[in-house]
């Protein structure tokens, strides 16, 4: 069985084409059959080729095929068309989906990139030589982080518990009623989300990364953008840090 990447264009060599047709047609019928069995659904496939006078059909018995076709025709035309595709529309659909994924992925990666840059700058890297887009994006990220830190500090102040060693704080920035004692006003910041989770539509309950990319649970204040932090739906936009940059 060849595992070379096949070029997706009409096979000009006649015998090669016929051979490919035979194999792939067989494979296609197998896939239809599997789909039908695995999911317990009705299906039908019809293939016309120049190599055979009669069409290749699944289910093999034409009456079964006709039954499915009849079922199909009973569906109102609008419903039929909704999920009907030809080659062109099918491929366009795939292109659109891929473009969508690309956009999301680029956003996600950009955030990782800028976060990394920010980390570097926080540990001494100079700002010279950075281009305006990077500076702007970093500025935005810094603001986000400031907001979050501010909230966390507020929370800690409210809790009034004396610091008692180090431990990870479980979650929501909202005040927890667990009473002073065990609850040390400690925070853990991390990126664990995009480290561990490959999907960039993350919606976890857990802890939001304080710096950089945390849970992208909701689109708080954005056009569906993935915000770096999950502040537990607690959108306190009483801008603590009023500065010239945010009107």
């Amino acid at each position, binding site marked *: 069985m060849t595992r070379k990447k096949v070029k997706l264009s*009409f096979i000009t060599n006649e015998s090669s084409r016929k051979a*490919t047709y035979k194999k792939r047609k067989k494979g296609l019928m197998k896939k239809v059959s599997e789909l039908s069995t695995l999911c317990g659904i009705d299906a039908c496939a019809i293939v*016309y080729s120049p190599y055979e006078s009669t069409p290749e059909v699944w289910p093999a018995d034409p009456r079964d095929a006709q039954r499915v076709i009849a079922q199909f025709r009973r569906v109102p035309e609008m419903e039929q068309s909704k999920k009907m595709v030809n*080659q062109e529309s099918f491929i366009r659909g795939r292109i659109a989906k*891929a473009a969508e994924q*690309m956009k999301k992925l680029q956003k996600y990666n950009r955030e*990782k990139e800028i976060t990394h840059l920010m980390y570097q700058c926080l*540990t001494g890297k100079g*700002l010279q030589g950075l281009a*305006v887009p990077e500076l702007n994006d970093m500025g935005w990220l810094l603001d986000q982080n400031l907001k979050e830190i501010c909230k966390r500090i507020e929370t800690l102040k409210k809790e009034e518990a004396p610091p008692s060693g180090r431990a990870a704080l479980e979650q929501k920035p909202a005040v927890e009623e667990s009473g002073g004692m065990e609850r040390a006003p400690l925070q853990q910041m991390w990126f664990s989300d995009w480290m561990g989770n490959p999907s960039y539509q993350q919606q976890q309950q857990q802890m939001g990364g304080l710096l950089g990319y945390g849970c992208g649970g909701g689109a708080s204040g954005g056009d569906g953008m993935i915000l770096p932090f999950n502040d537990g739906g607690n959108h306190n936009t009483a801008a603590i840090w009023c500065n010239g940059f945010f009107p």
Partner: protein
Amino acid sequence: MAKKPSMGRQKIKIAKIEVKNHLQVTFSKRRSGLFKKASELCTLCGVEIAIIVFSPAGKVFSFGHPNVELIVERFLNLNPSATTNSFHLMEAQRNVTVRELNMQLGQILNELEMERKRGEALDQMRKSNQSHYWWEGPIDKHELEQLQDAIQELKKNVGGQVAKVMSQVATYSLLLGPDDGGKDGVFDQYEIKPGQVFVGSNAVVGNNNFGYCHGFF
């Protein structure tokens, strides 16, 4: 440790899937794969295909080349293939479009793969540098406040740097005058037109408050 994106190929039993959720996911994926295979067969071998599939929820999906109705009617003997010249012409045209679309698809899938790899590289980088960043471990209130100060400081500096660069740009473009045509050099990332100052990659025309509002969103 990064999780594996998926389980990889598992051998499954060909019998109705028990778990409804799995069933639906499987249907969705396999239906898509089936149509893909059908599309490839059409392109590679120049055959005509129709596939009709009912979803577990009862919705009907269909794929047809050249289109579902034609094949179905032919099958039911309602329309013994009446191919005219104009049909062949349309067919040829369609094939050209499909070829181009396939190329476009191939391209974007490659780009997607490269971007994914880039993401992985970034993950690696972050992982290997983790020890340098003290704020990534547990920290207390005092340290939090220190971090806050550090961030504010950096933010101030960033603002200053942006202003500095923008004023350089303004000066530069004024010196060049109108229509310098592509001599931007180091400012390639964003457009400069004399008299205007563009901020960031989402150009905000004439907005001089250097708002960060859009950033990379």
